[in-house]
């Protein structure tokens, strides 16, 4: 068995990201923080996807994360980034825990479309509630950190650094989870649920746990994006937002906890180029890429990355 180098790799990547957050130009920092947020959501999707489940409704928890930040802003006047970024996943996780009792009973397309329907329920509620700004949404307070307010540029950089650390923590924990018995149950469930039940474990519970995990991660992503952009609106919950997460998940592949973040960064690159060369055909680029990946590279870009690394490993002394 080859040594698992995920954790050192993640640590190095985080150092690089912290460097970017500290020194890179503003637009790049902003891009990075949005990618990290998206990567967190997709990390959760990946946990589900390994068990053969694709949520088309992670926008639900993404929006819940964002609106939790907004509501805490309004209700309590609190804007501490650390507090918000903990509260949002907690709320999202709680909701996922409740809905999970229902969703754990469903598989393949039924799971996908039901998750989607729940996202649409939230969308419907948000659009109609004037206290939450209806379709326009509302603005988020500038996040604060311990100590005096450091100014907008430094705030964005601090937030990005925080996001990088959260991403590291999440990736490391999910990595550990994937190596556990419950993590391995993903393949087991995809292969044969009856056997899992006959081994004495509840498939529902296994899926429920994965679903809650995914909800927590999406909530964290939503909170970070809300603070980075400074605004939230019901579009966060709409199913096309969830569709973007699905896109990134397929683009990235489920081979490693680093894949979702790589995928999220590639997504931004793709969007930037598409905006430059085919400004009105963004959906076509998305759809075309998705098709190409499903047909030609079903394990995502991570599998390319792995393939590229393999000869290196072989050369290294064992």
């Amino acid at each position, binding site marked *: 068995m080859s040594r698992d180098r995920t954790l050192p790799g993640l640590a190095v990547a985080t150092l690089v990201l912290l460097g970017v957050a500290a020194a890179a130009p503003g637009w790049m920092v902003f891009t990075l923080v949005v990618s990290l947020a998206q990567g967190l959501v997709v990390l959760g999707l990946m946990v589900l996807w390994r068990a053969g489940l694709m949520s088309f409704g992670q926008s639900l928890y993404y929006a819940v994360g964002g609106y939790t930040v907004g509501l805490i802003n309004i209700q309590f006047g609190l804007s501490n980034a650390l507090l918000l970024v903990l509260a949002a996943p907690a709320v999202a996780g709680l909701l996922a825990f409740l809905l999970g009792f229902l969703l754990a009973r469903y598989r393949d397309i039924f799971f996908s479309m039901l998750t989607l329907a729940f996202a649409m329920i939230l969308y419907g509620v948000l659009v109609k509630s004037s206290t939450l700004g209806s379709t326009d949404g509302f603005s988020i307070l500038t996040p604060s950190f311990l100590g005096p307010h450091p100014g907008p540029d430094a705030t964005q950089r601090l937030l990005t650094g925080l996001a990088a650390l959260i991403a590291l923590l999440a990736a490391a924990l999910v990595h550990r989870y994937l190596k556990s018995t419950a993590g391995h149950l993903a393949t087991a469930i995809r292969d044969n649920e009856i*056997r899992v039940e006959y081994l004495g474990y509840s498939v529902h519970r296994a899926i429920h746990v994965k679903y809650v995990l995914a909800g927590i991660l999406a909530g964290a992503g939503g909170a970070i994006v809300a603070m980075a952009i400074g605004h939230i609106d019901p579009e966060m919950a709409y199913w096309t937002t969830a569709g973007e997460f699905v896109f990134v998940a397929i683009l990235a592949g489920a081979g490693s906890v680093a894949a979702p973040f790589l995928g999220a960064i590639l997504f931004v690159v793709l969007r930037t180029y598409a905006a430059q060369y085919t400004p009105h055909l963004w959906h076509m680029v998305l759809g075309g890429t998705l098709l190409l990946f499903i047909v030609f590279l079903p394990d995502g870009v991570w599998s390319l990355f792995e393939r590229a690394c393999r000869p290196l490993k072989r050369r290294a002394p064992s």
Partner: protein
Amino acid sequence: MTALLDVRDLHKHFGALAAVAGVSVAVAEREVVGVIGSNGAGKTTFVNMVTGYLPPSRGTITFRGRDITGRPPRQVTGLGIARSFQVPQVFASASVLDNLLVAIGIAEEGRLPIWTPLRRRQRVARALATLESYGIAGYASQPASLLPQGVRKLLDIAMATVRGPELLLLDEPTSGISVGEKFAIMDTIMAALRAQRTTVLFIEHDMEIVDRYAERVIAFADGVIIADGPPQAVIDDPEVRRLVVGERVKVAE
């Protein structure tokens, strides 16, 4: 001696079809029972009900004096009843070792096995030892989807036994295995089970196997038990000959 498993008046109807139509049977601790019966006699359906996969239409199932009727498989498994499947149920895309590791992981850990790595060193050792006792350790790193039928059957049985069940129900352990290999495989299985002092009920079509390994034989026909007793007596029973064994089969002495 009280029965380990006590089944009373068990029925299962699929629409108009009565797959099991009033089965009562008691199995004592440490017994090795063979179950015979022609295709569609209701043997698998019987096992499906005892292990909770199908809810009975009528009747009760008692295990160690406790009513377990209608409990789902995972609870029944937890109580000490395990089964193997007529068509092996394994995790096709995982390796043989991982198949067994998942089985052991579930057996060893509690409700939320989310922290301890699956491939702990002691666990791998235990898994390899189990594979060894079933004679399939050589396949450890192969994906289960590529296994020969006999090996797959053994893996299926090995996975069923990791909890050290008190009662093991084997559904045609030698079906799909060549005549030459059958005895060797049954020897392996029975040796492994004897070491664990497991009570065994096995379904089997091959009368030679039944005669060699069972202490007691139950014959099913059309959803009911038509004979129950020592192997030779049941196999020689004229009713059983007519409905199950067929005249042409002669058991080798």
